[in-house]
């Protein structure tokens, strides 16, 4: 019982971190502040994955999102602004119409999610999932796995092609 209460407290802490810092990402005036709030959002989502028993995915989230995509986004912020004017403002436009539409979308989606009787089945998967995920990737999902590797190669070459400085 005590353990259960502690788990709930930790869960709500992760949930509040995720949603709160996502709100900061959306509403902050400064781009740098948005980028660093995104760090906490990714961290909170990794915590939620850990809560769901997806330990491999939690680690992957930390490595790829926090270590890769966030650094890439920070490079994007730094390289597309002059560093001397450190305000890096990002204005919001058409705030109130967008807020109304977004609240409507939220209400509809939340109603659908809560009123559907989801099939809740057969208990949790075994906790250390890494070996099982590896076996699935090498057996059932070998074709998507290879296609994903080719996609990453294409993205690598394409990104380098787009940003290269044309010499002529």
């Amino acid at each position: 019982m005590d353990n259960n209460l502690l788990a709930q407290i930790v869960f709500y802490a992760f949930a509040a971190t995720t949603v709160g810092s996502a709100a900061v990402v959306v509403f902050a005036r400064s781009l740098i502040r948005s980028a660093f709030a995104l760090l906490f959002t990714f961290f909170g989502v990794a915590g939620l994955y850990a809560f769901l028993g997806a330990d491999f995915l939690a680690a992957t989230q930390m490595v790829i999102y926090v270590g890769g995509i966030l650094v890439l986004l920070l490079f994007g912020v730094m390289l597309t602004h002059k560093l001397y004017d450190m305000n890096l403002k990002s204005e919001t436009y058409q705030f109130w119409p967008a807020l109304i539409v977004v609240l409507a979308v939220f209400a509809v989606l939340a109603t659908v999610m809560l009123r559907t009787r989801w099939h809740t089945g057969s208990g949790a998967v075994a906790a250390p999932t890494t070996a099982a995920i590896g076996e699935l990737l090498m057996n059932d999902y070998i074709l998507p796995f290879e296609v994903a590797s080719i996609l990453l190669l294409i993205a690598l070459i394409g990104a380098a092609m787009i940003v290269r400085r044309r010499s002529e």
Partner: protein
Amino acid sequence: MIGLNHYLIISVALFSLGIMAVFTRKNAVNVLMGVELILNSANINLVAFSRYSSGNLDGQIFAIFVIVVAAAEAAVALAIVLSMYRIIKTVNLDRANTLKG
């Protein structure tokens, strides 16, 4: 007791905030952050259903592929943003109104 609905609501909130960012921002990097929020919300749904509904690992495999595609998307999109900044000296999306490079 924490159930499936808790995760679904968190996912819906993240999705709504993501489309809010896409609607209201004109800075290309900020719009990309909104897209990342949307992808994360979809991932939370996949993992939550994998845990509570199906009871096997297929949802987590899908989430891994979503992460792979998100990484590729971020790399290519930021390359396009840098290229756009070099050509028209701004990352305001309203100014990107021509296809000529």
